[in-house]
């Protein structure tokens, strides 16, 4: 059977699949990007049950359920069809995201609030687990053999573009709720954070409309017409030795390394800039946005190139570069944002103090902001909070909140360092959809490729920021200690991939 399609047809397939997948990534990442605000709204501090729910919801739930979504929806996709399954995942994702934006806060409905958010986050994770494999399979099964890497690489841009969209919408919303910048931020943290969640429903509605017009994958339709679809795809994927060994090889030789490289370059980098380097909230986001904009075309380049030279070596070189350059890159980020070796101009230092009475309370909050201007161009903002009681006593806040604003040169140097990391992401991620599609048979492809993908990205990758931060809290002497997790995982994956994978491009995925 001819799997190639007319150029116009394949463009429609790619567009319809990519738009939906991009929206699902957007939905998934706005929760992560807004996690501290969501935690403050739904998970009050000091209550152990709420703390437990907070930990589960913000820390792990969305990532851990992704492999289960891969199994549930993968099975459906291999039995019912690709088109309807990933239409269903889109509806579930859009519905749950919109609903998160509607849930009243803890103050209004008590424990029902965090429970509802946790459940909706689980639905998000399940839906994402089912989406990606469907979209990648769908596009690959419409593609001719010699352009499979190129066509599926469009799907590969969607995760990064989804992150970009979420960062952009959050920044725009945060700035546009009031003419006064501080008031706008306050409004965003109070209720405006819901807008990015509501916005999702518009995107999902458009995507559903587009996807409804699509046809089923030609390979799956043929299989179904011949009565050759799998009776039990999960059993065949995991219990059949010949297929299980490929699932394990895909996980340990490709997706686990790819997952940590993806999440280090685009998520841990953001956390590191904000916490270790103490770069300003807005600058951190715009740095990432620029780096993503510059690097995203490379997904297509490496996908295209993988059709010429094979998938394996592009992925392996990406892993190799990541393993050897993460520590120097992060060291450089620390140096650029360091103020300890630079001198502040004391005559330029500005101190502003504001006292705000707490409504209905017998105390006021005094916020002291100190602005220091360093020789290397960095402006450091140190915010200190004190509580002033009516009887004249004073309680000093324990931690100063520091944020640094970078001068133009340092700003672009950091953009370049994040860009390099995203180049590694494009190398390991650009060709991986084609690679995964080609190693599994059509009748169990949705299930089989989704599982290693979501184990690699949801478990190994998704945990990267958390594990790296946790390592930092254990081994406090080395600020770069968190990098050993992605480096070790990528290094093991590299060895396994180099030795066990082959570089063959499957000429026929119609089997």
């Amino acid at each position, binding site marked *: 059977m001819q799997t190639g399609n007319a150029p116009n047809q394949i463009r429609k397939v790619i567009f319809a699949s990519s738009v939906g997948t991009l929206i699902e990534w957007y939905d998934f990442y706005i929760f992560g990007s807004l996690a501290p605000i969501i935690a403050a709204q739904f998970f009050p501090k000091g209550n*152990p049950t709420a*703390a*437990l729910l907070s*930990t*589960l919801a913000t*820390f*792990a739930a969305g990532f*851990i359920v992704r492999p289960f979504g891969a199994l549930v929806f993968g099975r459906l996709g291999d039995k019912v069809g690709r088109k309807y399954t990933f239409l269903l995942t889109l509806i579930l994702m859009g519905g749950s995201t919109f609903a998160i934006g509607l849930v009243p806060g803890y103050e209004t409905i008590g424990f029902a609030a965090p429970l509802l958010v946790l459940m909706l986050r689980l639905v998000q994770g399940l839906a994402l687990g089912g989406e990606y494999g469907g979209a990648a399979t769908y596009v690959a099964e419409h593609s001719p053999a010699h352009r499979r890497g190129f066509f599926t690489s469009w799907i590969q841009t969607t995760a990064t573009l989804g992150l970009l969209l979420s960062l952009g919408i959050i920044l725009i919303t945060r700035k546009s709720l009031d003419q006064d910048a501080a008031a706008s931020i306050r409004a965003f943290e109070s209720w405006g954070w819901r807008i990015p969640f509501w916005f999702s429903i518009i995107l999902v509605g458009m995507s559903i409309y587009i996807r409804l017009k699509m046809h089923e994958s030609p390979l799956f339709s043929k299989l179904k017409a011949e009565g050759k679809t799998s009776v039990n795809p999960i059993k065949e994927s995991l219990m*059949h*030795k*010949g*297929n*299980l*060994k*490929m699932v*394990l*090889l895909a*996980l*340990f030789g490709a997706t686990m390394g790819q997952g940590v490289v993806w999440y280090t370059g685009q998520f841990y980098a953001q956390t590191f800039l904000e916490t270790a380097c103490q770069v300003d909230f807005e600058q951190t986001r715009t740095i990432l946005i620029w780096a993503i904009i510059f690097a995203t075309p490379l997904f297509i380049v490496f996908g295209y190139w993988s059709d010429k030279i094979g998938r394996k070596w592009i992925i392996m070189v990406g892993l190799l570069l990541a393993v050897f350059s993460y520590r120097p890159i992060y060291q450089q980020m620390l140096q650029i944002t360091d103020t300890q070796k630079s001198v502040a101009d004391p005559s330029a230092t500005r101190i502003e103090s504001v006292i705000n009475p707490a409504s209905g309370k017998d105390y006021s909050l005094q916020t002291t902001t100190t602005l220091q201007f360093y020789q290397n161009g960095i402006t450091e903002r140190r915010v200190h909070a004190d509580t002033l009681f009516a009887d004249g006593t004073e309680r000093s806040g324990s931690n100063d909140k520091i944020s640094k604003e970078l001068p133009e040169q340092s700003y672009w140097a950091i953009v370049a360092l994040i860009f390099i990391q995203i180049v590694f992401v494009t190398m390991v991620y650009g060709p991986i959809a084609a690679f995964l599609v080609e*190693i*599994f*048979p*059509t009748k169990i492809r949705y299930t089989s490729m989704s599982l290693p993908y979501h*184990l690699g990205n949801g*478990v*190994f990758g998704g*945990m990267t920021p*958390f*594990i790296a931060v*946790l390592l930092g809290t*254990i081994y406090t002497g080395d600020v770069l200690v968190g990098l050993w997790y992605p480096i070790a995982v990528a290094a*093991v994956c590299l060895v*396994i991939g180099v*030795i*066990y*994978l*082959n570089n*063959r491009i*499957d000429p*026929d995925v119609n*089997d």
Partner: protein
Amino acid sequence: MNQVKKVLGLVWIVFGLTAYGLLLKTCSEQIELKPTTDTIIQWSIFAIIFLPIAIGFLIFGWLAFQGAYDNLPESSEAVEE
């Protein structure tokens, strides 16, 4: 090369056991050090989610040792054989 793949199979088995053992050791140390809800939940989650991964790694090592990866399949029929 096939001999290297097989010998490394044993390395993966040992590595999988050691890595998971280290994880369990760190979990118990950290929970003992700070037995709060957050610490217990976080480290228990790590222990639970990496258990199937560790088992998968052992199976992978075992299959490699058995020579299952000497020749990778070139068609779906070969995968299913």
